[in-house]
C-alpha cells in the first residue's frame, strides 16, 4: 500500500526540506527490507507522525533513527523506534524545484 506525506520541519535538511513530498510504501510491504540508510515514516506516541533516517537496525529489529541536522529530535532522545510504530519507508522523494 502506498501513501503520500508532506514534510514539515528541518531535521532531514538538506536532503529533505520542509514542504517536500514523499511516497511511502506501507508495512507490511517492506518491513523486513528496512535497512540502514532508509528513510522511514513512523507514528511516535508523543511526537506524532515522524520521518527520519535509519541509522542502525539492532539484532532484534530495534530501529534507531536520526535526522541529518544537529538539532534533530530522534533516537538519541527517545531511543529505538518500535516495529509497531513503523508505517513504511520512503520510496519516492518529490522535492521542491530549486531555482
Amino acid at each position: 500500500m502506498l501513501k503520500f506525506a508532506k514534510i514539515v520541519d528541518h531535521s532531514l535538511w538538506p536532503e529533505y526540506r520542509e514542504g517536500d513530498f514523499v511516497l511511502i510504501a506501507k508495512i507490511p510491504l517492506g518491513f523486513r527490507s528496512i535497512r540502514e540508510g532508509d528513510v522511514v515514516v513512523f507514528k511516535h506516541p508523543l511526537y506524532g507522525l515522524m520521518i527520519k533516517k535509519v541509522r542502525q537496525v539492532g539484532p532484534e529489529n530495534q530501529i534507531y533513527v536520526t535526522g541529518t541536522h544537529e538539532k534533530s529530535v530522534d533516537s538519541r532522545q527517545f531511543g529505538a523506534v518500535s516495529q509497531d510504530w513503523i508505517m513504511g519507508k520512503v520510496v519516492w522523494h518529490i522535492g521542491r524545484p530549486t531555482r
Partner: protein
Amino acid sequence: MIYKLMKMLDKSFGIEQAKAHCDIPCGIYDPITAQIAGLTVVRMIDLMADLESKHPEGGLEMQNSLGRYVASKEEHAEKAKHDIRVIWGDYIKSQHMEKHPNLHELVHKIMALGSKSRQTADRETAVQFVEAINEFAEIFWETKGIAVKRAKAPYPPALEMVYPDL
C-alpha cells in the same frame, strides 16, 4: 511539474504531514516563563479574594472582573504546564534523569498541581504549584552547571523564586 501537482493535491485534499522534528531554531530553554505563569495563578487567586471581600454583594461589574481573573488563572496554569512539558520533553535527556531520578515524579506533580489550580481557587495549591516549578528550575539550571539563588519576586505576590545566579 510533479511537485506542482502534489501541491495542488495537498491544497485540495490535505496530504498528511510527517514531522522531521527538530529543535530549530532554539536550544533556548528557560523555566522562568513557567515560573512567572505559576506566579500569575497565585496573583489571580489573590485578586479574586480581594474582589470578593470588596464586593460581597456581587453585581455585574464584580462578575465581569471575576470572569477575567478566572480566565487568566486558567490560561496561565495551562501555560506553566505547557512550558514545563516542552523543557521536559525536548531538553531533558537520559543523563539528566540518571542524576535526578525524581524528575519524572516532579513533572507529574507539577501537572497535577497545575490542574488543581485550574479546578479550584485554593491559594495553597497554587503556591505549591509555584514551588514545584521552582524545584524544576533548580534542577534545570543544575544541568546547565549554573548556580541558582532564591529571592522574592519583585512584584505581587512576592513569593520566593529560583533565579540563575549569573
